[in-house]
């Protein structure tokens, strides 16, 4: 099982190691804390954009309330991820807490897109390992970056495009599974609107709010036209 999980998570490895390193280098060069705090943040916080924001908050010596609000708002998009995984994680037992803890953008993408068999417990075990593998890549990246500091010599410029490519591939896979372009155009349009109107730090959450609002309207319209779409989509 580990081999297939590794194959599945390989694109995330290529994305997380350089991104984790970028965070680690930033942490080591901007702050006066010991290097191991960077991987520790990868273990305990485990949020890409959140940790990069944390570096500037740490540098500014932000107060705890400010830290809580800033991290909550920045990661607020995750609120919506759980909604589509309620059923999938149900009955996962002790694994469930970790599955929820590790729900990053990339893990969410893999868990909601990969093909699933009928054996629920087996699939949850696979989900669990995917989450664990991904976090390992991230923590390793954070550690390498913090240890190397600003002495990074090799030219890996652009390797983080692996995550963009992963999102593109997963979008295509979602389309093939759904055979319905509506959510994709909604997502792309919402992203466009958010990027035109909002500052970079609010674009993701803004776009997700728009998408969720559109889906709520979509749901009401399906319901009002008498179609029992909800009941059919088991």
């Amino acid at each position, binding site marked *: 099982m580990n081999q297939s999980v590794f194959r599945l998570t390989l694109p995330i490895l290529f994305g997380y190691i350089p991104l984790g390193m970028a965070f680690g280098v930033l942490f080591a060069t901007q702050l006066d804390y010991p290097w191991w705090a960077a991987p520790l943040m990868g273990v305990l916080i485990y949020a890409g954009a959140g940790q990069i924001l944390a570096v500037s908050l740490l540098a500014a010596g932000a107060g705890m309330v400010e830290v809580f609000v800033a991290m909550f708002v920045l990661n607020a998009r995750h609120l919506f991820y759980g909604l589509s995984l309620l059923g999938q994680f149900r009955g996962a037992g002790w694994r469930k807490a970790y599955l929820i803890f590790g729900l990053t953008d990339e893990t969410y*993408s893999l868990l909601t897109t990969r093909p699933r068999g009928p054996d629920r417990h087996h699939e949850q075990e696979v989900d669990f390992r995917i989450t664990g593998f991904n976090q390992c890549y991230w923590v390793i990246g954070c550690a390498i970056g913090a240890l190397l500091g600003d002495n990074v010599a090799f030219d890996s410029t652009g390797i983080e*495009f692996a995550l963009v490519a992963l999102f593109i591939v997963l979008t295509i896979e979602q389309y093939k599974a759904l055979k319905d372009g509506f959510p*994709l155009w909604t997502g792309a349009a919402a992203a466009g609107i958010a990027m035109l109107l909002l500052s970079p730090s609010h674009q993701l959450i803004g776009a997700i709010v728009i998408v969720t609002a559109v889906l709520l309207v979509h749901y009401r319209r399906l319901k009002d036209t008498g179609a029992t779409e909800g009941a059919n989509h088991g």
Partner: protein
Amino acid sequence: MADMTYLLSFIAVAAIATFATRVIPFVFFERHTEHPLIKHLGRYLPAAVMALLATVFLTRSGNWNAALPGLDAVLPGLLVVAIHLWRRNALLSIAAGTAAYMTIQQTGFLAGF
């Protein structure tokens, strides 16, 4: 030496805030997994979010002040789409697109256009 108490409380607060955003849906909606609205979101939200993430991160990867704005990201993006539609092998599509993007960024050969 920097203040370790501050650092550790900072990490604890940041970890709690991040976990809160992930766990809240499970705390408040756990009993409604069979509700048609939750099923509707479960069916459509992942696809919409995926398209959204792809759009945002692809846009951010490009240089929009170049003579051909954004082509340095759109071109490798299209390559990913083409190769994926052709072979439907995720790793191949991602590797090809990433290699193309890295080449473009490191050689800067699109800068002249």
